[in-house]
């Protein structure tokens, strides 16, 4: 235990000895961990958005303005008979406009000049979201639907369902993930280089002491201890800053964005945040220890 105290004292000394490089490694660790953290929070948000969209899956089948009521009723009855369908409703053109007017601004409504461009629709609620593709295909293949759908040239165009939103979200997350991995890889590399350099300087500064330690038979672990401790200390400081920054973002930035974009789900649970913070500190420790291990391999002969 007393040697742990010794390592700590020595690593603190290394900190003050090379303040600028120590700050450099701390800041790079901080930046890389913060960006990793932001991406992790983002991933959790997208996950919850995807599942909220999936939960509310319904199929909207738009019908042409001139469709006769008998065909619509027949189609509704047929759809209600499909497996996995919970209920089938109908939205008239007027109802659609009214629903639209609640979300859109009055300017757009005025520019419509009393003409209603919105189609009427059959709304299909599903009891099993997994079957959404299959049911959509069934509706699309239905002869009656093909006859009365809003866009007879391409009946699929007249069908809207949540899966499309889910697909788009997945598409988005895929690209975001590529960018994140590349960026994090680069930052981790830079952080390792910085830690490596800081520890190298610390080793150089203590060359004489190391020579004497080797001379009098200090064990390899004892000689390496202070440098591992120094790397770990930088990493923990960097991780602490990153956690602090993320916490600030959670408290101030996210509520603002969420109020600006009310239709997206921004709520990430507290346990998810705690888990992310834990992962960041762990990743930081690994980074710091790895960086000092590299430096010791190259510059510290024991």
């Amino acid at each position, binding site marked *: 235990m*007393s040697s742990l105290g010794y390592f700590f004292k020595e690593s603190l000394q290394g900190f003050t000895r090379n303040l600028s490089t120590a700050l450099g490694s701390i800041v790079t660790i901080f930046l890389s961990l913060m960006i990793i953290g932001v991406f992790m929070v983002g991933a959790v948000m997208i996950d919850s958005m995807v599942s909220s969209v999936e939960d509310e899956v319904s199929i909207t089948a738009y019908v042409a303005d001139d469709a006769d009521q008998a065909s619509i009723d027949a189609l509704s009855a047929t759809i209600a008979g499909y497996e996995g369908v919970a209920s089938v409703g109908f939205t008239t053109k007027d109802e659609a406009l009214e629903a639209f007017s609640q979300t859109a601004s009055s300017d757009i409504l005025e520019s419509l000049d009393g003409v209603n461009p919105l189609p009427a629709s059959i709304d299909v609620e599903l009891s099993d979201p997994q079957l959404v593709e299959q049911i959509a295909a069934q509706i699309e293949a239905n002869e009656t639907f093909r006859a009365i759908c809003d866009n007879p040239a391409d009946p699929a165009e007249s069908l809207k369902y949540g899966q499309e939103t889910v697909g788009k979200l997945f598409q988005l997350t895929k690209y975001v993930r590529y960018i994140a991995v590349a960026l994090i890889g680069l930052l981790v590399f830079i952080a390792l280089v910085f830690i490596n350099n800081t520890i190298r300087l610390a080793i150089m500064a203590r060359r*004489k002491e190391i*020579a*004497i330690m080797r001379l*009098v*038979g200090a*064990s390899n672990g004892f000689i390496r201890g202070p440098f591992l401790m120094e790397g770990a200390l930088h990493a923990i400081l960097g991780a602490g800053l990153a956690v602090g920054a993320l916490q600030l973002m959670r408290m101030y930035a996210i509520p603002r964005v969420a109020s600006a974009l009310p239709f997206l789900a921004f709520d990430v649970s507290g346990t998810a945040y705690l888990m992310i913070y834990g992962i960041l500190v762990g990743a930081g420790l690994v980074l710091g220890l790895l960086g000092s291990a590299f430096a010791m391999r190259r510059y510290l002969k024991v």
Partner: protein
Amino acid sequence: MTNDASTNGLARTGRHGRAGAHSRRAQMTTQLSQALPTLEVDEMPSQLGSPVITFDHVTKVYPAQPNKPALNDVSLQIYAGEFLFLVGHSGSGKSTFIRLLTREIKPTSGKIYVADEDLSAMKNWRVPYLRRNIGCVFQDFKLLPNKTVYENVAFALQVIGKNKHVIKTQVPEVLRLVGLADKLNKYPDQLSGGEQQRVSIARAIVNRPPLLICDEPTGNLDPQTSRGIMDLLERINRTGTTVLIATHDREMVDNMRRRVIALDRGRLMRDQDRGVYGSDV
């Protein structure tokens, strides 16, 4: 002179055989010494037991100089409690000899035993524990300038994990032994060269190693101060510590009349009890 040296060396190996060492190697050298005329040395140091250091046909070739071995087929034994000099020109292999002993380098061929342990087979992690049994003193003292005398000596115990109580009792004691009891809180640059060397000797023996190696301990000191350092090393030797001194100091070697091992261009030229620096080196 050379002939005398070789017979003397053989007498030494023969003596080892009689000492009842168990290894086959010792038996072989006994047979060898019986086959050759031996010269009995009438006055032998009394504290002989089994050898603490054995060099068995040790050759060291550095990669930079493949045709010029730094040590060439050196075999010798050093016994517990001996006080001996290692003499030779620069480049004769003295430093290589010492670095082999502390396992900083490994021999190219041959075996080295320290306290019955084969250094070439020793695992790297055990090397620090070997070094705890070997005190080292150098020409340039190797003291830490930002630590006091006390702290410099305490450092040696601290880094091998000794507790505070041991440090508090052993450090003042060893500083009293080397005659620096009143300079505990001085920094190295406030001391004379001789005093600094005493600090470095104190650091080397504070852990009470059975073997003390000194590489040119008086190289930077005037003759009178050197005499004082040698007196101190003799005193340490009298407590049972084996002392090996590599030196250029002809006068000192001639005055002390102790065992002398002479190296020349990597070869063991002479191994002589109560020897002198000699003209062959």
